[in-house]
């Protein structure tokens, strides 16, 4: 187990700045998720920690030791690659055994360890197969088994679930979470799937264009997104973001009137989560318009209303029914929270500092 510190690290590919100068501390034993859209530098950041990519400037410290110049094999890490990186010419057993073999562990101990690990990820019966004879989920387990077979100080996982089908992804997610709980190894996990990030993480680092824009617990990130980008990225369905302006202490847009504590200004975005809105018959509700769509998701119905350019979605009761285009009103549930952002800079306006 170990703490990892990235100090003023920066990565350039030629003249292209993939990761601008920034610092990040990953606490001992935590599950840190790097979350962001594709191409935002998550893999690059992880590969720098692994030692697969040179750092343009800055330092990487593991347990307070500077490891910039250490080759990957001396960093005591294990990694699960997006495409698994299995050894196609070796059997599952040989794949899992390889890290132990490289560390000069005796044959008998290796065999025992491989069997235990394989059983843990339910691969016990497949040990003599080749990777090409396995399904995606099974390959993913081999990659995982190979990583956990020798209890490293740090786990690195690069979108390990992205090649799996939706159902398997959910199962494997729970397994990963359980595994982390059991082993307590510091883990850095890369994903572009906000749901994965929210469910797995101790803390989430939301990245955009190489920069970490918010680093906090999933709860905090959900409740207080640092800016417009995070607000729109986290949550499913995503937060309602309504363009409007503030005058006389009221945020105004078509059919929207919400009292806010801001001086008069234009270019304001009001945000509220669909699950914090409820449907009402009260024509004086803060958000009003015509019913645009009803989508039953099973446990609830997503109700979307429109009013000119304004569109807002609420998570309503599964039994809710109404005519499309009929008038529809939304009101915040008790304890709900409106978020205010500056349209141009994306910054938060309502004083929550991060």
């Amino acid at each position, binding site marked *: 187990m170990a703490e990892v510190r990235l100090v003023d690290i920066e990565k350039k590919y030629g003249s292209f700045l993939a990761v601008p100068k920034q610092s990040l501390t990953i606490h001992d034993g935590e599950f840190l998720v790097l979350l962001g859209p594709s191409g935002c530098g998550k893999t690059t950041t992880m590969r720098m920690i*692994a030692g697969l990519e040179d750092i343009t400037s800055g330092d990487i410290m593991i347990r307070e030791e500077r490891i910039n110049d250490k080759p990957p094999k001396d960093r005591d890490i294990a990694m699960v690659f997006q495409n698994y990186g299995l050894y196609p010419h070796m059997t599952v057993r040989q794949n899992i055994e390889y890290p132990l073999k*490289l560390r000069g562990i005796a044959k008998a101990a290796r065999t025992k360890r491989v069997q235990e690990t394989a059983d843990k990820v339910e691969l016990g019966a497949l040990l003599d197969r080749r990777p090409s004879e396995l399904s995606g989920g099974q390959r993913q387990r081999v990659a995982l088994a190979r990583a956990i077979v020798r209890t490293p100080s740090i786990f690195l996982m690069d979108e390990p679930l992205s090649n799996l089908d939706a159902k398997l992804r959910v199962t494997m997610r729970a397994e990963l979470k359980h595994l982390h709980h059991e082993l307590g190894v510091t883990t850095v996990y890369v994903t572009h799937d906000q749901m994965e990030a929210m469910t797995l993480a101790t803390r989430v680092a939301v990245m955009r264009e190489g920069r970490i824009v918010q680093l906090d617990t999933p709860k905090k990130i959900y409740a207080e997104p640092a800016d417009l980008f995070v607000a729109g990225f986290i949550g499913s369905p995503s937060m309602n973001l309504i363009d409007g302006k503030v005058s006389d202490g009221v945020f105004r847009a078509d059919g929207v009137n919400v009292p806010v504590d801001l001086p008069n200004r234009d270019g304001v975005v009001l945000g509220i989560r669909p699950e914090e809105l409820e449907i009402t018959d009260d024509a004086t509700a803060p958000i009003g318009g015509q019913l645009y769509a009803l989508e039953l998701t099973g446990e609830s119905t997503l109700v979307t209303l429109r009013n000119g350019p304004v569109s807002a979605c609420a998570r309503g009761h599964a039994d809710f029914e109404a005519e499309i285009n009929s008038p529809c009103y939304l009101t915040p549930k008790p304890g709900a929270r409106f978020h205010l952002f500056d349209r141009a800079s994306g910054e938060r306006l309502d004083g929550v500092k991060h």
Partner: protein
Amino acid sequence: MRKPFLYLAERALLVLISVVVLFPIAWMFLTAFKQPRDAYSLSLNFEPTLQNFVTVFSDPWNLGSMVLNSVVVATVTVVIAVPCAALAAYSFSRFRVKGRKFLFFLILSTQFIPAVVIVLPFFLMFRQLDLLDTRIALIIVNLAIVTPFVIWMIKGFIDAIPTDSEEAAMIDGASRLRVIKDIVMPMAAPGILTSSIFCFILTWNEFLFALILSRRDAVTLPVGLVSFRTERGDLWELMSAAGVMITVPIFIMALFIQKHFTRGMTAGAVK
């Protein structure tokens, strides 16, 4: 369904090409078993004999020592060239060193130089070193000829291997050399085997340098063939018998390549 006419035309063309390609080979195989008087006849009606093979292996032709020379030169060349080329190919494929492309081009460009142009300087060099008419000289020259080609060929195979597995091995605790030994070489094995056989064939058939650099002791099979053109005329039946001796090993290897090549292609990497 395809048009029957096109189908027939295609078959006819294939047969024609096959005949043109195969006739000289068939002629050689037949002549090798003919008596001298039948050598020029096209008739298949002749009395087969093994006498030609006995003759070429005895005085004054002594094909045996040429076979040995060819085997030694080709084998040693392969044994040295392929491992060196494999390491060079790996480096060209994986290390992003400045000037890498230029260097690679430079190595390949040696292949564009016509051999006739450089055969004399080689002759002078080996005379200076007192290596004329030795197998060592032939091995050195052949190494110079085949290594760039083999580097290029193996690089193609290594380029096709995804780096994922290599990086995984490095994280699992392998050094770069260990990665090459445990991961890259096994995965590139079909390609390396194919390259080795190509390398062997090139060396086995090399004629010009062997002709100029050998006289008596180091003569190889292709050069030996020329000695059947005597003042008494061309001894086609003996030349054919020797030709069969040259061709058969290559023929067997070609079959082997074909088997391995397809296997190498279908083995594939794991996604």
